[in-house]
């Protein structure tokens, strides 16, 4: 899931300076789970905007915001309202906001900051475990990602900085390499660790990327 966080409201107001009539879009999937762009949050945003003297012309929870065809179909139904709006405030991730921006002729502003691809540990608790590096390493790291969970993305083992199994960069995080080592050892696969890993092929992560599934 793509994890988002609401931008400070002051930043949103800056975007919307001089814009009176605002249409709000949300997203039925990630942003709803992150509580940053479901119907509930949209209605709360509407309230805050009204308090600032704005008009909210309408809203739509896109299903989901990153699906271009779906978003187009939903927004088409709102064409008249959209034409009378000065701006769209998009309460989705950065992808969802760009999808919307590509479909309309009004300026689109993000209400959220997009944080990372993450896991829902429990309601309201999200953690990052994959950085979409383009060539997954999990096969030799006992299912623990060193690219994401090691603060330095090291490939050949830990730096000298871990203490009591915690990461030097943020002692609230486990040192990914101590975790990998322990797990590989449990699985009797420490020889995986001993293999020299050459620097990663970063051409696989050179953006923007595109995937086409063949027929």
């Amino acid at each position: 899931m793509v994890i988002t966080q609401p931008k400070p409201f002051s930043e949103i107001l800056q975007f919307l300076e001089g814009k009176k009539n605002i249409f709000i879009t949300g997203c039925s999937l990630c942003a709803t789970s992150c509580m940053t762009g479901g119907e509930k949050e949209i209605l709360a945003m509407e309230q805050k905007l009204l308090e600032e003297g704005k008009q909210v012309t309408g809203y739509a929870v896109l299903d989901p915001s990153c699906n271009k065809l779906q978003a187009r179909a939903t927004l088409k139904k709102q064409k008249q309202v959209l034409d009378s709006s000065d701006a769209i405030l998009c309460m989705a991730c950065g992808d969802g906001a760009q999808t919307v921006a590509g479909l309309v002729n009004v300026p689109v502003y993000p209400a959220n900051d997009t944080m990372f691809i993450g896991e829902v540990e429990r309601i309201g608790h999200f953690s990052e475990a994959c950085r979409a590096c383009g060539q997954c390493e999990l096969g030799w790291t006992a299912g623990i990602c060193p690219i994401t969970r090691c603060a330095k993305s090291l490939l050949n083992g830990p730096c000298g900085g871990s203490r009591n199994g915690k990461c030097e960069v943020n002692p609230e995080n486990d040192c990914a390499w101590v975790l990998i080592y322990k797990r590989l050892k449990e699985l009797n696969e420490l020889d995986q660790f001993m293999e020299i890993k050459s620097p990663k092929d970063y051409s696989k992560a050179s953006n923007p990327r595109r995937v086409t599934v063949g027929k």
Partner: protein
Amino acid sequence: MGLKQKLESGGFAVTTEMAPPKGTDFKRFKECALAVKGMVDAVNVTDFQSAVVRASSLGAAAILVEEGLEPVMQITGRDRNRIAIQGELLSASALGIKNVLALTGDHPSFGDNPQAKGVFEMDSVNILQVARTLMGGKDLAGNDLAGTPDFYLGASVTPVYDPMELQLLKMKKKIQVGARFFQTQAVFDIELFKKFITAMGDIDAKILVGVIPLKSPGMANYMNKNVPGIFVPDEIIERLRKSQDRVKEGLKIAAEFINEVRQQKLCDGIHIMAIGAEENVPALLEMCDLDSAA
């Protein structure tokens, strides 16, 4: 005799470490370096240590060569991708720098420009790997070089680490890709160091044990609390607390440690990190029972 010859012929090597200045004034850097000339086998130049902006290790190492000292150029993967690391190594060789110490590097969040993006495209193992590739006449992508560098490669190791086996496995990887000598994190407890040497077993590499002359009990407490891999025993902190001249006592403690490792033949040399008090290094070396390095 250079560092390589000294170590590879079984001698006891002495190195010390200096940070390039923050700014363009190399006066103190040169003074401190010249003061240890003839007393040490090589001088490490740190690479933006603690992620702090300074003159670069390449520049400072070249200045040491000019002054007739042998540098160990430290290089980390924090600030450079593979293109920059290869270029830096080639330049180093052309400037007469023979020793390279590969490190991962501290995270930018610890430094004085914490907004910086950490690169970390290559870890210490990768840097050694690429240095060796260059020594074979090719760049990392397999392209030919006009002129081939020749380095004596080193790396670091932390003798007080839990789990120790993990530290030793990584050390083996570094050796596998060309590390010949290791400078360790500072050690204060000789028994812990012995444990590490025993745990090393038949790992074949030259070990220069790290020594930090303590300046005060506060410094020791701070390091115990904040620096991973450092453990200063209570007796030492107590000795510092009781002494009249704490700096001198710190040098004495360091000298005793050095003489002890030397006498017991625990390792192949020492690496002194004076962290800001480089002017004390000659006095420390005079207190030790060492052959002159020259």
